[in-house]
C-alpha cells in the first residue's frame, strides 16, 4: 500500500511530532515499505488462529487494593516548569 504525504502529516499531527518536509518524504517511503510487509502478512491464512493480545504467553497478575504510595508531590513537582498552590500550571486550555 502506498502512503501519501497527507497520511504522514496527519499521523505526525496526531502524535504531536514536528516533521520537516524532507523527513516527511523519507517517512512516506519507509512507512510504505512497512505496510507492504504487512500486506504480505495479510496473505497468510489465519483461520482458526486466535488474535494475539500480548506477545508474552502469560496472564495479568493482580495486586491487592491497598494504598501503598505516600505523598511525594514536592519531589515530583521539582521538574515541572510551573506550579502554584500544589497545581501543575500549563498553557491555558480553552474548553
Amino acid at each position, binding site marked *: 500500500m502506498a502512503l501519501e504525504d497527507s497520511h504522514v502529516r496527519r499521523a505526525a499531527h*496526531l502524535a504531536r511530532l514536528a516533521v520537516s518536509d524532507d523527513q516527511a518524504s523519507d517517512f512516506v517511503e519507509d512507512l510504505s515499505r512497512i505496510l507492504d510487509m504487512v500486506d504480505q502478512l495479510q496473505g497468510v491464512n489465519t483461520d482458526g488462529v486466535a488474535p494475539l*493480545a500480548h506477545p508474552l504467553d502469560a496472564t495479568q*497478575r493482580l495486586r491487592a487494593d491497598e*494504598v501503598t*504510595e505516600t505523598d511525594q508531590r514536592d519531589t515530583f513537582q521539582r521538574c515541572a516548569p510551573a506550579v502554584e498552590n*500544589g*497545581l501543575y500550571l500549563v498553557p*491555558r*486550555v480553552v474548553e
Partner: protein
Amino acid sequence: MQWETVIGLEVHVQLATHSKIFSGASTAFGAEPNSQACAVDLGLPGVLPVLNEQAVAMAVQFGLAVHADIPEVSVFDRKNYFYPDLPKGYQTSQMYHPIVGPGEVEITLDDDTTKQIRIHHAHLEEDAGKSLHEDFHGMTGIDLNRAGTPLLEIVSEPDMRSAKEAAAYLKAIHSIVTYLGISDGNMAEGSMRCDVNVSVRPKGQEAFGTRAEIKNVNSFRFVEKAIAFEVERQIELIEDGGKVIQETRLFDPERDETRSMRTKEEANDYRYFPCPDLLPVVLDQAYLDHLRSQLPELPAEKRERFQQALGLSAYDASVLSASRDMAEYFEEVHHVCGDVKQAANWVQGELSGALNRESLSIADSPVSAVQLGELVQRVLDDTINGKAAKQVFQALWHGEGASADAIIEAKGLKQVTDTGAIETMIDQVIADSPAQVAQYRDAEPEKRGKMIGYFVGQVMKASRGTANPQQVNGLLKDKLDALL
C-alpha cells in the same frame, strides 16, 4: 409528523476502591491537589501499571448483577489523545475485549410497568485529572489526584424511547451499583457521570436518525431536562428543513439548554491498540461462581419479594427498594414493629418528609430504624394515638429522648382509654359550648356528622391530645344525641 425519540446512555461509575486502578495511590476525595498522584499516575518514565484486583471484582459483580456474559479473557487498550490532565498521552481503557459483555437491566416506569434495557457492554478504564480554569496568570492549573481512579463505563443499547425512560434507567444503574457497594453513587461529587446519545426518527421508521452526544449530564433531573431540550431542538431543525449533524453537545443546567462544543478540526482518532504494559486478564469459572455467591439481594429481587411475600403495592415496593439503605431501614422497622403496612407508611411518610425537609439521606437519619419500629409498636398496641405518635417522632428526631417509651413517659402522652375520664371531659366541653350544642340540635340529622368534629377537637384539646379519638367520637355522639 409523529416523532420517536431514541436514547442510549453511557454511564461512568467511579468504583469505590481504596487505591487506584493501576497504582497504590489513594482515591480519597478532597485531598490537597496532586498529593495523591504517584509516579504511575503521572506517567513518569519507567513505571509499569499493576491492575487492582478489587476493580476487577467490582466490574464483574456489576456484570453478574445485570445477567451479562463475562468473557474469560479481557484486554486493556490505549486510547490516545493529548490533553494536559492526561499525563501519559493515552487513557488505559478497554475497546475490543471489555470485561463485561451484553446484559440487561429492568427499569420501572411511573405507571408500574417494567421494561428491559439492554446493556451493550461495560469496560474498565482510568479517570483523567482535573483542569482548573480559574485565572492562574493566564494559565490552567492541573490536579492529577483523580488520574487513575477506576471507572466502569456502562454502555446501553439505544433502547430508551423517552426522557423518563432514560432517567429510570439511570436510577436503576444507580441503585444496582449502590446495592452492590461498588460505588457511592454520589452524582454531586462526580462518582456517577452520564453522556446521553439522542436522536429522533419519524414514528414507524426503522433506521435511526443522526444522533447528538450530550456531555456533562450529572443528575437525574438534568438527564430529563437535557433530553427534552435536545429532542425539541432536533425536531424543530428537521421540520424547518435542516439536518441534525453528529456532534458532541454540552448541557448547560443554568440556561437549561444544550449547545455545540467547538468541533475539533479533525474527527476524533484515538488510534486504539492493545496496551503492551498490561497482560490479558483471565477470569476462570470458579472465580465467577465465588463472586456470584457473594452477591447481595438486588433491587429487582427485593422489589419482587416486598410485593409477593410482604404484600406491598408495586409503588410502595419500588420506593422502599430504591436504595439499599432505604430497604434495610424499612426491613428493620418492620422487623421491630411486626406490621408491614404501618412500617411502610411511617418510612415513606413521616420519616421521608423529615429527611427531605433537612436534605438528609436515610443513612444519616437522626431517628434509627429500631427507634421508629418501637414507636410504631406503641401505636399498634394503642399506648398512644396517631397524633401523639407524630409528637414522639419529632422528639426522637430532635434527640429529646432515647426511645419512644421514654418520651411517652416524660411527656405524659399515654393514650387515655378510661371511659370515665373521657366522659368527664366530654361533659365539660358540652357544658362550655351551649351555642354549638344548640346548633347541633337544630341541624339536619345528616349534617350533624360533620358538626361533631368541633366537639371532638375540643375534647382532644382538653386531653392534650392523649384521648383515644375513636372512643371520644363514639361517646360524644351518644351524649349529644341524648340531648336531642
